[in-house]
């Protein structure tokens, strides 16, 4: 007999982590129609920033501020040097971001070496909920994902930047004619996406450890979240996509190996795409 609370909390937890990891990807994708293949590498940069900060004796909470800033700057460099030249060529943008992923990964290896590092978990004691004990840090991550969604929602719905970026999503040419600097919106969006990757890296560092390939695993799952969730409704899409992909993988992994669970989820994602292309290809 499975422990219901454990199962549910595992599903919620997997979903929350995926929300944090995939939201940045979804934002850049929704805005520019481009998958940032360097997203995984940026998550890794965030995780290493968290390692560097905690290693220097500072608290992990400092890393939650610094990591997004550092990674947003990396994103800014990418955007100015290359991505801004490719906005009319989405498939080439995707390739260029993969080039960046390779370069970033190698730079990390040069700076930090290839061996795995660890980041101390600030909440080691469990919390007892309804008779089963849950790791406190995981509860914190669930709260964090809710917070991130709220902030993103408010940012896009109620600020002038949000208004402009929604205008650019709907019709970039018209937005441009009406006086919005589209390139600046793109640049800001790319940085926000990168910052979220940095946050994700810092957030997962204490539970999965830090090595040069930390982010890659989240990359593929995040793709599926974005594809299954669609880009028409960023938050609803990311939420439902994360729930479907993360939740079903977590649920299946109780009964089978993680690989098998992921394979099933992959097949499932293809079926979703086959059956509901219109729901998936909304927007843009």
């Amino acid at each position, binding site marked *: 007999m499975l422990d219901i609370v454990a199962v549910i909390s595992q599903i919620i937890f997997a979903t929350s982590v995926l929300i944090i990891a995939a939201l940045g990807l979804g934002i850049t*994708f929704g805005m520019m*129609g*481009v*998958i940032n293949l360097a997203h995984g590498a940026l998550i890794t940069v965030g995780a290493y920033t968290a390692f560097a900060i905690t290693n220097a004796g500072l608290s992990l909470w400092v890393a939650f501020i610094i990591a997004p800033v550092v990674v947003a700057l990396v994103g800014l460099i990418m955007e100015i040097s*290359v991505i801004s*030249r*490719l906005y009319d060529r*989405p*498939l*080439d943008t*995707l*390739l*260029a971001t*993969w*080039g*960046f*992923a*390779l*370069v970033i*990964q*190698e*730079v990390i*290896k*040069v700076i930090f070496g290839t061996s795995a590092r660890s980041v101390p978990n600030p909440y080691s004691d469990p919390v007892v909920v309804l008779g089963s004990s849950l790791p406190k840090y995981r509860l914190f991550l669930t709260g964090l994902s809710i917070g991130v969604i709220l902030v993103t929602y408010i940012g896009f719905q109620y600020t002038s930047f949000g208004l402009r970026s929604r205008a650019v999503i709907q019709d970039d040419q018209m937005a441009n004619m009406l006086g919005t600097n589209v390139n600046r919106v793109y640049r800001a969006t790319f940085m926000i996406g990168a910052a979220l990757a940095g946050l994700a890296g810092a957030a997962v560092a204490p539970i999965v450890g830090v090595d040069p390939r930390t982010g*890659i695993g989240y990359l*593929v799952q995040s*793709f*599926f979240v974005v*594809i299954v969730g669609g880009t028409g409704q960023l938050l609803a899409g990311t939420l439902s996509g994360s729930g479907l992909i993360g939740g079903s993988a977590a649920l299946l992994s109780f009964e089978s*190996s993680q*690989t*098998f669970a*992921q*394979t099933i989820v*992959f097949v499932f*994602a*293809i079926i979703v*795409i*086959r059956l509901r*292309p219109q729901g998936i*290809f909304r927007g843009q």
Partner: protein
Amino acid sequence: MVGTIILFLLPLVASPYLSFLAAQYYLFGLLGISLGIMWGYGGILSFGQAAFFGLGAYIMAWSFGLSPLPINPAYIALMIAPLATGLTAGLLGLVLFYSDVKDVYFVIITLALSVILEQLAVSASDIFGGFNGIYVPRMALSIPGLFSIKLINDRLFYYVALLAMLGGYVVCYRVVNSPFGERLIAIRENERRTKSLGYDTAWYKTQAFALSGSLAGIAGALYATLSQFVSPPLTGFVLSTEVVIWVAVGGRTLLLGAAVGSILVNAASTVLSSVIASQYIMILGILFIIVVVAFRRGIVGYIIDRYDIKGKL
């Protein structure tokens, strides 16, 4: 033409090890061609080409693992591998192209396909040999009752690999210069218009993907018996993305670019990785970004444009 003759004479002067390396590069060249025909002519980028390559390699390994067969096991693998990989690609194409999956979505699905296959190969160790992989003997060339030569000699295998690549090149060259190829190019240029002219574009794309998959399957099967070892990375993420880089660097708009790029980048990696070991991938990444931004037609495309020698090829 002159180049082809030089390639045929190369083993006479090269060491066996160099022949072995060259044979590897040719099989990667064939893999590059299999990507190039999809990407350069159909405008469809597959980021999971290694899935078919690896599947072909495992089929070769499995066929040697079967109890003694009346016929040469390598022949069976070389028949089954393109069938199986072509069929897999075709089925996937049917599902994806008819639901109008394209561009970025297709990239991600194919990428995920190869990631999943790699994970499966690692975890289902009783079938795939897990992390340790499977040993594969060298294949033999044989005609029953007449002769049988086991291709232990790397110089002999060199010719097998070279012929496989040239064969793949000729097949693809004929395909892209046929009416089918013209329709493929039309799809790349403007799919909606091609569709409205009455062509079943999804079906053309499916056929091209099946061809591409089966070529990658043959390349993988031969690679397995050349390197005498198969392991999960042959199906995986890294190789899949590497092929894309080779073809982009060589020149995605030409089959020749795909082949030359694959051979050049691999040769460079052998030479350079011993000199500047760790920075090699970083340099490759930077080169890739530069090619994507500034030289869309790649090295071969650039040379052909620069010296205007298209007519002479």
